[in-house]
């Protein structure tokens, strides 16, 4: 989200770049710009800096109604496309207020776009993964090792999501896999629209594996379907083993839970069985793989999972 005016993630803010490309982050807070343009619903479906135009001045506050109410019994179908002069009088008294049924899912726009992505992936036989976790659980290291190990077997494409920097994309780039970095700036998650754009830029090949590394955050990304085939949540043993019940939505919406950094188990209080039990309570369909990217222990199970699900 835009921290300055609280607007959602607008297209202008998000940058999608390949390693080596220039930054062109434009983020204008032009509060005072003129609103002469017409608002077309289709056109301003996403960007909200053009704050709504009120071209009539008769808000209750600045419009004095010292006229007689008897004059105002007439019904007027005023069309708000025009500026109407207020030398005639019309008293509203909220008498025109009425209920309109809406019945629309709030996440509908994202969900529809996610379904489009999903259809595209299916048609091109792209196996897509949405990798989610807290910051620092080892997602990027897991990816680096996976690509190095399996690149002869599978064609990998990677979308990296971070608030800022190209660091992760540069790390993936070093493995030889095509990658784009999405920088969400103040945003805390990736959404289906960003993936749609990133996939076009990345030119993902048919029959490939697309790995989307989401912004490190166990809360917000859970709500945003990206159109992925499978969602993989990564936790590391340096975190609390109660993470699954502290952040249940993420575990509820995932297909696989990777427990990383198992080489550190002798030094931490993390109870693997307890973590699994908590996670199973939240989502009894969840599969688990325990591994250590550092020592390589358990990585074969992960590779097997990829081969099986691909």
């Amino acid at each position: 989200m835009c921290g300055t005016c609280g607007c959602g993630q607008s297209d202008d803010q998000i940058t999608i770049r390949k390693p080596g490309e220039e930054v062109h982050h434009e983020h204008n807070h032009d509060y005072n710009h003129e609103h002469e343009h017409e608002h077309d619903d289709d056109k301003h479906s996403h960007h909200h800096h053009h704050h709504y135009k009120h071209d009539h001045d008769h808000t209750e506050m600045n419009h004095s109604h010292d006229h007689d109410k008897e004059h105002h019994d007439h019904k007027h179908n005023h069309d708000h496309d025009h500026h109407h002069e207020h030398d005639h009088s019309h008293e509203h008294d909220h008498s025109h207020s009425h209920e309109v049924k809406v019945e629309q899912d709030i996440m509908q726009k994202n969900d529809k776009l996610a379904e489009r992505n999903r259809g595209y992936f299916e048609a091109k036989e792209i196996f897509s993964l949405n990798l989610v976790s807290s910051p620092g659980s080892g997602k990027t290291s897991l990816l680096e090792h996976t690509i190095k190990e399996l690149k002869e077997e599978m064609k990998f494409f990677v979308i990296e999501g971070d608030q800022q920097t190209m660091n992760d994309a540069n790390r993936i780039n070093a493995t030889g896999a095509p990658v784009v970095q999405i920088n969400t700036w103040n945003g805390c998650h990736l959404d289906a629209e960003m993936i749609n754009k990133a996939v076009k830029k990345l030119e993902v090949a048919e029959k490939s594996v697309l790995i989307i590394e989401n912004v490190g955050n166990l809360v917000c990304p859970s709500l945003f379907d990206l159109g992925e085939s499978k969602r993989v949540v990564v936790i590391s043993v340096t975190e609390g083993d109660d993470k699954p019940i502290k952040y249940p939505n993420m575990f509820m919406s995932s297909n696989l839970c990777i427990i990383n950094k198992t080489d550190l188990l002798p030094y931490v209080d993390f109870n693997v069985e307890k973590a699994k039990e908590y996670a199973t309570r939240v989502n009894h369909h969840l599969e688990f793989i325990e591994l250590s990217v550092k020592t390589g222990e358990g990585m074969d199970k992960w590779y097997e999972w990829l081969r099986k699900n691909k």
Partner: protein
Amino acid sequence: MHELSVAQNIIEIVTDFAKKNHAKRVMEVVLDIGAVSGVIPDNLEFAWEVSAKNTIAENALIKINYIEAKAVCLDCKKEFNLDDIYSICEYCLSTRYDIIQGKELKVKSIIIE
């Protein structure tokens, strides 16, 4: 704070409906928010205040129907209220259940003038 994005989505839907109905402004927005939807009503109300500024829905009242979570146990097949997303079946203590209610995130209706 994904509630800001959620609030933005609500504004889009509300603005769309308000314009289609030639509204001058939106007085009230009624939402269904499920207990396990991942959206915290307090956060959403805060996000709404910020997001609705300078829109047709500025100053609109937000009414949230908070919808309890319910699940069906896969072992004993009984229905029970889910206090938390990680509850267990109150009849047979099973942890295997499907959530049948409580994930709602919906704009129900608006009052416009």
